């Protein structure tokens, strides 16, 4: 496939790709398939009934990766896809998704991705998702990702989701359902500015014995932006759940943090922490005594916080 510089840049931003990736991949560009590769263990099949793909990973697939970036460079594209991941048993795989929108036009560009993960027994999945927007147009850049995670016995999933600037409006929904011994680790990083709005909702059902979830969000809200973080953990068995939201608020921004814990078992151990505040004055002062200006100090603190 031939890519122009905008497409190449978007790919680099969302998937760290500097060209065509190794292993299995599926690249979707402006609502159309732009490249696909399958391997002996990882199959990618176009859905018949609705837009999207099935990614099927065989049992015992280890040290392999799948890249499924979506890029939108035309203005006015409204893209909706359903991606289903079927990860077999005893796997150890990395899945890199992500969406980049470059909108220089006047119409809204939008991508709604619905990702369902079915993770087999004893499998380990690292899922990296990055959302990126750019462009000088007046048209909005909108993304509404939904992620549903179903985890079989003793499986492990680590989800890293990042959205730094560029997306005007986002509502992200993530749900998890964990069987015995399953472990879910979610790390979210968000930065909004200007008039952007980001809402994230997590809801995790800890159904199995000794399953656990850790949902951590770090965010920075600048300008007139608004963020809502809601994290619901339901402990239905002997399990452990922890959720933490740590937000830096600047300018005229507004941040809402709504952790919610429900224990339906005396053996459930659930913790939530939420902290919202401006950059600590002594942090700014310390960096200024090292010779940084106040703006430089602020930049360093924010960059470190979201690293």
């Amino acid at each position, binding site marked *: 496939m031939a890519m122009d510089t905008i497409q190449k840049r978007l790919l680099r931003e969302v998937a760290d790709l500097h060209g065509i990736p190794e292993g299995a991949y599926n690249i979707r560009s402006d609502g159309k398939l732009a490249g696909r590769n399958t391997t002996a263990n990882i199959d990618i099949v176009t859905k018949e009934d609705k837009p999207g793909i099935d990614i099927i990973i065989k049992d015992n697939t280890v040290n392999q990766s799948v890249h499924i970036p979506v890029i939108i460079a035309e203005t006015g594209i409204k893209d909706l896809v359903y991606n289903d991941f079927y990860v077999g048993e005893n796997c150890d795989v990395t899945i890199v998704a992500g969406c980049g929108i470059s909108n220089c036009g006047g119409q809204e560009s939008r991508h709604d991705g619905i990702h369902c993960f079915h993770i087999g027994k004893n499998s380990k999945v690292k899922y990296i998702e990055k959302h990126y927007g750019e462009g000088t147009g007046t048209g909005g850049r909108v993304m509404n990702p939904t992620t549903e995670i179903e985890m079989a016995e003793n499986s492990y999933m680590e989800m890293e989701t990042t959205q730094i600037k560029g997306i005007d409006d986002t509502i992200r929904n993530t749900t998890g359902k964990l069987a015995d011994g399953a472990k879910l680790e979610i790390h979210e990083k968000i930065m909004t500015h200007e008039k952007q709005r980001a809402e994230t909702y997590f809801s995790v059902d800890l159904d199995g014995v000794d399953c656990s979830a850790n949902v951590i969000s*770090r965010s920075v809200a600048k300008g007139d932006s608004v963020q809502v973080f809601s994290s619901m953990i339901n402990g239905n068995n002997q399990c452990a759940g922890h959720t933490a939201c*740590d937000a830096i608020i600047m300018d005229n921004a507004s941040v809402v943090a709504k952790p919610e814990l429900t224990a339906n078992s005396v053996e459930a151990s659930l913790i939530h922490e939420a902290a919202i505040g401006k950059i*600590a004055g*002594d*942090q700014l*002062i*310390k*960096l*200024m*005594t*090292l*010779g*940084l*200006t*106040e703006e430089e100090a602020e930049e*360093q*603190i924010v*960059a*470190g*916080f*979201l*690293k």
Partner: protein
Amino acid sequence: MIELRDVCFSAESAGVKKDILQNINLKIDERFVCLTGPNGSGKSTLARIIAGIVKPTSGQIIFDGEDITDLTITERAKRGISFAFQQPVRFKGITVKDLVTLAAGKKLTTAECCQYLSEVGLCAQDYINREVDDSLSGGEIKRIEIATMLARSTSLTLFDEPEAGIDIWSFGNLIEVFQKMYDKIQGNILIISHQERIFDIADRIIVVADGQVVADGEKEEVLPVLANQRPTVCSVLTEKVKKED
């Protein structure tokens, strides 16, 4: 050289005006100067005034001949003033290497950065990529704070109780760090301390009590005054002076 001319600082606490520093006049150009005095006497406030963190109510601050009273923290830092805090600041996500690099003001190789950490007795490999956050112990973060001062190497360095939290086994090394620092940059080093072993290396000791300089001179001249301060200052020292009597 740093000079304080008639520096006063007062602040309001619980609706009552309190004079925290009164008419401080000092000219400091020695190698090691130790600033000591009882808790709450105004030592840290004085250091914060020199670094520009606190604005004096009145008075002037002259640094290397320039009146810096109205300069910002950043401008003073750029002129060559460094300040190691009594309570070092913690940052989420900023690594030890990031912080030392920011202090140096230029890109550092890993080897250079490790060198600074080794000098303060930290095994560099273990620390360089750690975050300067709550996970560091009190002694570790104090040492990192000192390492950033080495990386800055400016003509005036203020240390606010650098030995606090540093185990006694490392105390000798700490003194070596100051000595090496002086050999390298020949800058003035002002150490706020309650420790007799710091007094021993100081060329001059300034005693502050209730916001005023109550003694100023070499160790022998100053010790008797110190002994008359509140007993909380240093009981060991009091005993020693008595013995010498």
